């Protein structure tokens, strides 16, 4: 048996787990985001990988019913939808500030959509809170991983429905 193309995933994730399934739930529901602090310009380079079908079904529900995510699509519409989605679901704050992330663009790689974002700090705060709820509106089983890197320091965080927030120290003193 063949695993179904991701485009139908939403449908069968939901349906096939209980009934006889010719299809395998397409994967575990995980997004991975690499978060890298670049000291030279006080910024985070953010690279998020999402399954195309998952994000597509969310955007379809929330905005354009017949939206298809494919490389030959109207880029600006998709980009603005994604910008909003990331603004709502990948949030960086400190005690004093809420930071704005810039959506730089995206690439389609096989069944994944790779999104590139950047956060530029005017002034560094010591503690940064990260809230990652990407695709939590898609699946209850959704989990998100952030691989954080700052120089040689590396750390990974697992965001879940019960623990959607973590704190990182930017300037360990």
């Amino acid at each position, binding site marked *: *048996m*063949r*695993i*179904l*193309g991701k*485009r*139908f995933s*939403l*449908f*069968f994730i*939901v*349906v*096939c*787990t*209980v*009934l*006889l*399934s*010719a*299809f*395998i739930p*397409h*994967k*575990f529901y*995980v997004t*991975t985001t*690499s978060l*890298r602090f670049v000291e030279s310009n006080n910024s985070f*380079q*953010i*690279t998020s*990988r999402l399954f195309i079908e998952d994000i597509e079904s969310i955007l379809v529900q929330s905005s354009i019913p017949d939206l*298809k995510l*494919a*490389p*030959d699509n109207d880029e600006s519409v998709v980009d603005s939808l994604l910008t909003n989605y990331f603004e709502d679901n990948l949030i960086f704050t400190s005690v004093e500030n809420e930071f704005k992330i810039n959506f*730089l*663009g995206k*690439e389609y790689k*096989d*069944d994944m959509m*790779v999104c*590139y974002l950047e956060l530029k700090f005017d002034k560094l705060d010591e503690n940064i809170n990260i809230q990652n709820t990407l695709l939590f*509106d*898609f*699946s*209850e*089983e959704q989990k998100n*991983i952030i691989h954080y890197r700052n120089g040689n320091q590396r750390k990974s965080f*697992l965001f879940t429905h019960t623990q959607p927030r973590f704190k990182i120290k930017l300037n360990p003193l």
Partner: protein
Amino acid sequence: MNIIHSHLIFLATLFFTSGLSAQPDSVVAKEGGHTNNNKFKQLYQEFFTPNSYRTASGAPGVDYYQQQVDYTMDIELDDKNKRLYGEEKITYTNNSPDALSYLWVQLEQNIRKKDAIAHEKDGNGAKPLMMVEEFVSDYLKDPFEGGFNIQSVKDANNRPLKHLINATMMRIDLPTPIKSGDQYTFSIKWWYNINNHVENRARSGFEYFTEDGNRAYVIAQFFPRLAVYNDVEGWQNYQFWGNGEFALNFGDYEVNLTVPADHIVDATGVLQNPKDVLSKQELNRYKKAQNTFDKPVIIVNQAEAEEREAGFSEKKKTWKFIAENVRDFGFASSRKFIWDMMAVKIGSQKVMAISLYPKEGNPLWEEYSTIAVAQTLKTYSKFTFDYPYPKAISVHAKNQGMEYPMICWNYGRPEKDGTYSDRVKFGMISVIIHEVGHNFFPMIVNSDERQWGWMDEGLDTFMQYLTEQEFGKKFPNSIMGLDNYPSRRGAPSKIVNYMGGDQSFISPIMSNPENVYQLGSNAYAKPATALNILRETVMGKELFDYAFKTYAQRWMFKHPSPEDFFRTMEDASAVDLDWFWRGWFYSTDYVDIGVQSVKKFFISKEPNAEIKGKLAAYNMTLDDLPPAVFTVMEDSEDFNPEYAEGSPMNHSKVLDTYVKDNFTEEQLKGLKVPKYFYEIEFEKPGGLVMPIIVEYTFADGTSERITYPVQVWRKNDKVVRKVMASDKEITNILVDPDLETADIDISNNSWPKKEADSDFENFIKKTEN
């Protein structure tokens, strides 16, 4: 030799002990012992003991046997009531050495019974989002009345046979045991309600087209089928829970399919009565196709199919098929089908490549389906054996890809206006290659899918990758704008995310399909990638291809077990692979190998402090040693900058003298003395052992590639040190330069440490351009 010069013993002691840590100052508790946990440990504990059924070489043994089960069936499709009726006569030949007092028959349809226990196999709780059809079917509608209704089970004399149904298995109790070598004939009469496979996400059923009120049936697991009895499992009666597929016997089939008179049908086996079921025009085209090798001949075209789907005949027609030596039977039937076929030459045989699709599949299907079938048969035959069946059919089915002997269902549907994206096109070609490819694994090399998903899915996905790449080369127009066919699976880099992922959601490949996380990565992508790496990096294509073909031919029309595959791959290649199977198939370890450090060293006049210390400890002087060459590390106290000057020969009198005494004038002239010596330390944070592929780049811009065999990790699983001597300075070292090992972290792969450009940086560069 029993007398060893004491000098040599001393020298040996120096070498063997140098590098080991000195005796600790304080006394610590003595470490306990341990069992063999070496990555190269033999697989005797994991493998079954070879025997006369299955040999240590991986071939069938002298006593190998398999049961034969032949079926004669009358089947009727009731389109109006969405029901299937059947009466089957089964002839069971007991080739085993054992007498059998009962038979187990598989009833897969029973997984659709209202009260099937399989509905409750998961514990995922409430769903935040449900498709409306699912919600309605779960909470508002009466549940679907699925499953077999067994009307009778009778012996050859029409006497009822005692039987017991346990979920998806039925035991038939025999009046007297079937002795070894005996045959037993009995019959089963049944019917069931056919499910909508689109709603149900099933492997078999119908799709309903609201626009014209027609159904397209793709029917399989539709009759009670004998379970396998063999030397490995006894009766393989592991229940059908939905994920683990099928274990089936070879046999001959004679099947009469009665369907509405205006349906077009195709099935496993050869159509016996084309004259009875085809129009004159269709028959002419059908005959023409049998000898048309260059392009598909359309038997029923789109206009004709559209005309058919408008009427609903009350009459019936019976299509007769005969199939020899198959493990199963499937068929497709609808008014909506367009039908095309072409002949393909495979070895000395002619095979028909066939497609069936409703107009909803066009224009994509007319263009690509049959040629994808043909290419699959060619490539797979080249790597295994000549395709032995007379035909291979690809049937369009919404959303599903599923395989049966000679026939399979494949997805790939354009938009309503006929347009389609590359994703739909390549998805369709890939699934056709994959499902037609399943004819080889597991339809002919008949592994037990219920127990091992990877044996057919992994091998098939590996072959799919090779076929896709050939397809791209053969039909360059199909991949316009790309260098290669965009295979989703197979390339080592594609498995990195999975293998480097969260260990709590990864299972070893050697797991039952019901119990793994991420079955797609586990049973399809990882084994396919492992075999690809085995072929291209570990064994080399020539050794791999011969061994793989040997496996396919040894087990063609037989039932192989995992060990038969593992053992054959070694047996036919003389490549020890226990470490590979252990790591890639029995564990969830991953590859991560890098360069830890690079040290320069030089030939020195004097021994270093360590050797001096040892000499003093043994109360010896330099004169007590046999002629020896000394080296010192650049970063050690013993290093003297003058060692870096001039030829290394200048710094070792012993070496200089030896060379002058032992080399001829001629040899001395051509003597190349390496000027630079390096000790490179490779680290292995990953659990998998793999050959170390290294590219050394020199100051003059040239480079040299060296592959250190995997055996280098035998005695140290964490770090190994290799020496590189060269007359040129090394400027750069890169491990796995072509990304062929699925190394999950390449940030440690280069020296001097160089941050590989991240995806982020590459993207920024690309957008700036």
